[in-house]
């Protein structure tokens, strides 16, 4: 670098006005900082020599950077821009968006929120607090309503020192806000930025946002609204590209005795028809290889014990007696109300065969009830077990001590409110999660606590057993979800990636995938085999408290604070349905056994039924990633709404015969 070029540089860099050696020196320092940042050491020393700058002349801010990565990256916010210019830039951008063609307006408007946030953060970082305040107050009201919560949190960051401890700042820094834009809108934007020479804006957009350009029609405001709401924007195309094996596992061959012994059907002419039905079902079960199904050995699964086979046979028999639910033939609902719980109940769960109901309470106990006339019994002691004959058919009955039979059992052990419980398929185990950060495994034979899994240090919001047993997964405040096996005291998989606490978790029917819903308003689908995230689904405008997979594994329903239920197609990660109607947070979802009806319940004390078969049937077999969510927002799929007196609905569950069970604590205000 020669002497004359150093003098021309400041003039070129200092685009705006102002003379004076101080600003020249400042820009010189800025150049030096830039060189140092990019490790151009030789150039740096040369420049220093030429411009006669000593090392200690360079502003302290650069040198006193501590090792913390956060402050280094935050220094990227440092800009020499004049604070008053920010307002002008933002207003110009707003005007540009307003004046653009209607087709592009929706997509360009999506830019306003992230640009606003980044500009505000830059102002705060560079110490222009007053200007920042004015900027914030002026423009925050105009942002979309669903970003309100984030804006409130952002408003607490009013000084530079606040930025370092704040989690939200970190997430805004690390994950670039993603905006999906069609190519045409993108060219409009580029043209605007280049024409007006808006260096600041260009800088922000290039570094802090990620614009995912796709070839296709620009989306309307309505379509964009449907999929926006995520804390860091929408999902990139690559995030949802990998193949998801959503099919069900191949069922093993089980010899089922076809004689129906418990349902005496007197009419002879019905019997031949029934037999034909059974045969059809069986032949369907010996399914051809589903290309979308994972192999049975993709993840290690426990072998089927004899008791499991008997249970499966029972399940088939029950399935035959299943009632078909249609809009004319609505299901009967049996509601279990918990009285006298005084707002203590935190979670309710019903087992798969509908015989056991377990509830977690904020005083750290778990109560388990039997919904059938069979009472809950404890297993006999070791001494007594030795004496029974093990080869008898009803050894499982003899194993239980009738003297201990009771309608409900209490499990104590946690030291904080129990936020979630889950029962295993074989009804031997119950797993519970609590605010004390532990997950506990209980035996439903001895009614005692077997294992305490310590891994999360913060409250664990949700826990669920795998449909094949042996594995269970937990979701916690520390933004991770973990996969555990009952025989390992440490987690097998850690699913990290959410920007805020993970509120709900659910296994896919084939146990190969796990879905998590978080307070960052996204739903993620994780692969159990590798622990990687295979789908990111945005669209919720509030935290997600409930997830359910459809019985065929293809679709996922999610619901939460924003009072809408969203239906997703897992094959390509697109939104296929939006169900509005609830007036309070939704805490429970349940698909009917054939996947045609969805029942939901929540804080509005209401159980609602939705005809989702209509939604699924209107989908093509192959969706297109580029085409935005083809959601029909006008049609109403709700066909039943049942109000309780003062009982929020914390659990809904379809039995094997499609009877709907629901449960909640009676909370008179």
């Amino acid at each position: 670098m020669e002497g004359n070029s150093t003098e021309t540089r400041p003039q070129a860099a200092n685009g705006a006005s102002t003379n004076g050696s101080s600003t020249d020196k400042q820009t010189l320092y800025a150049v030096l900082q830039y060189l140092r940042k990019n490790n151009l050491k030789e150039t740096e020393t040369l420049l220093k020599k030429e411009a006669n700058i000593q090392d200690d002349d360079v502003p302290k801010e650069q040198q006193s950077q501590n090792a913390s990565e956060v402050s280094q990256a935050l220094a990227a916010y440092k800009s020499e821009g004049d604070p008053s210019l920010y307002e002008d830039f933002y207003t110009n951008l707003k005007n540009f968006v307003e004046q653009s063609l209607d087709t592009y307006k929706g997509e360009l408007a999506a830019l306003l929120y992230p640009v606003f946030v980044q500009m505000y953060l830059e102002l705060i970082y560079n110490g222009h607090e007053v200007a920042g305040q004015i900027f914030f107050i002026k423009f925050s009201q105009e942002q979309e309503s669903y970003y309100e919560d984030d804006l409130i949190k952002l408003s607490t960051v009013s000084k530079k020192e606040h930025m370092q401890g704040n989690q939200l700042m970190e997430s805004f820094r690390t994950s670039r806000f993603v905006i999906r834009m069609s190519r045409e809108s993108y060219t409009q934007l580029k043209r605007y930025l280049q024409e007006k020479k808006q260096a600041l804006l260009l800088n922000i957009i290039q570094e802090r946002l990620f614009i995912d350009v796709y070839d296709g029609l620009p989306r309307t405001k309505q379509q964009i609204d449907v999929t926006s709401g995520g804390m860091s924007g929408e999902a990139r195309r690559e995030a949802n590209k990998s193949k998801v094996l959503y099919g069900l596992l191949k069922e093993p061959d089980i010899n089922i005795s076809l004689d129906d012994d418990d349902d005496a059907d007197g009419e002879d002419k019905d019997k031949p028809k029934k037999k034909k039905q059974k045969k059809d079902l069986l032949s369907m079960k010996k399914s051809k290889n589903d290309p979308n199904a994972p192999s049975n050995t993709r993840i290690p699964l426990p072998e089927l014990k004899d008791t499991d086979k008997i249970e499966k046979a029972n399940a088939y028999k029950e399935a035959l007696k299943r009632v078909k639910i249609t809009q004319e033939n609505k299901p009967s609902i049996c509601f279990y109300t918990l009285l006298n719980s005084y707002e203590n109940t935190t979670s309710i769960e019903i087992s798969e065969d509908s015989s056991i109901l377990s509830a977690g309470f904020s005083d750290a106990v778990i109560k388990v009830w039997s919904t059938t006339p069979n009472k809950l019994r404890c297993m006999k002691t070791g001494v007594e077990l030795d004496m029974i004959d093990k080869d008898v058919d009803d050894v499982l009955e003899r194993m239980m001590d009738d003297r201990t039979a009771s309608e409900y059992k209490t499990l104590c052990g946690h030291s904080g409110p129990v936020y979630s419980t889950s029962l295993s398929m074989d009804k031997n185990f119950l797993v519970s999660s609590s605010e004390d950060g532990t997950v506990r495994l209980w035996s439903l034979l001895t009614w005692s606590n077997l294992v305490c899994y310590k891994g999360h240090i913060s409250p664990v919001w949700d826990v669920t057993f795998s449909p094949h047993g042996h594995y269970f997964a937990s979701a916690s405040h520390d933004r991770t979800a973990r996969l555990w096996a009952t025989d390992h005291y440490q987690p097998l998989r850690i699913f990290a990636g959410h920007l805020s606490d993970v509120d709900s978790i659910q296994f896919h029917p084939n146990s190969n995938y796990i879905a998590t819903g978080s307070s960052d308003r996204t739903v993620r689908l994780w692969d159990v085999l590798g622990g990687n995230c295979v789908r990111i689904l945005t669209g919720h405008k509030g935290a997600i408290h409930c997830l359910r997979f459809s019985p065929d594994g293809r679709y996922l329903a999610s619901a939460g604070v924003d009072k809408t239920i969203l239906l997703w197609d897992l094959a390509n990660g697109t939104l296929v349905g939006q169900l509005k109607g609830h007036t309070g947070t939704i805490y429970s979802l349940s698909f009917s056994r054939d996947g045609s009806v969805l029942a939901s319940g929540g804080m509005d004390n209401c159980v609602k039924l939705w005809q989702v078969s209509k939604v699924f049937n209107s989908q093509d077999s192959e969706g297109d990633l580029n085409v935005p969510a083809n959601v029909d927002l006008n049609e109403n799929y709700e066909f039943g709404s049942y109000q309780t007196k003062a009982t929020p609905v914390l659990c809904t569950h379809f039995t094997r015969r499609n009877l709907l069970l629901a449960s909640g604590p009676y909370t008179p205000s």
Partner: protein
Amino acid sequence: MAAPTKSTPKDAQVMASILKDMGVTDYEPRVINQMLEFTYRYVTDVLDDAKVYANHAGKKNIDTEDVKLAIQCKLDHSYTTPPPKDLLMEVAKHRNSQSLPLIKPYTGPKLPPDRYCLSSTNYKLKALKKPRLPVGLPASAYTLSSPKIITSGGVSKNQPLNLASMGGTSLSVVSKGVSMPTVTLVTKQGTSSSAAAMPMPTIRLTTTPSQSNPLKRKAEDDDYDKPS
């Protein structure tokens, strides 16, 4: 919920406006009291810590740096924030790289190794009769006719064990030697004075008795649990 009237103290009004700023609109009126109590306690704790740091640094008055340090320490101690995302991803990557372990079939309920389970007993069994086990003692004790007992009160030589004089303290006779069992005598806090009402000490033997030690004493002489 009810907006604080002019008569509520200034602190309460400030707290109400903080809640409003943070977007909390629906809350019971007692919440303000709870928040104020918490704030008061937190601030006094921080200032106390800051005073300690200022004293340590030899300063007379509290400085902002002292307060900052106090807040930082309190944060690390009580409020554990979730780990930063980079660390989480790192840990997750490491954990997820190990393949899922295979499941051994036909092993009954699959539980972790016993020491990670809560399935062991939470009680100890008390011996009903004195164990007829040979107990070895260090060689030095064999010059005496009775075992040497080290108590809080002093050594009593040639005196049969008189637990009554112990005054209810728990004593432990630990005799260690080559392949000898350790005998721990635990006396419960007795009903003090009367020597006659002697609580039965529980004798806990931690190793199996040895057989080959020539310095063994006969069991009949080991009347530790009987008053003399």
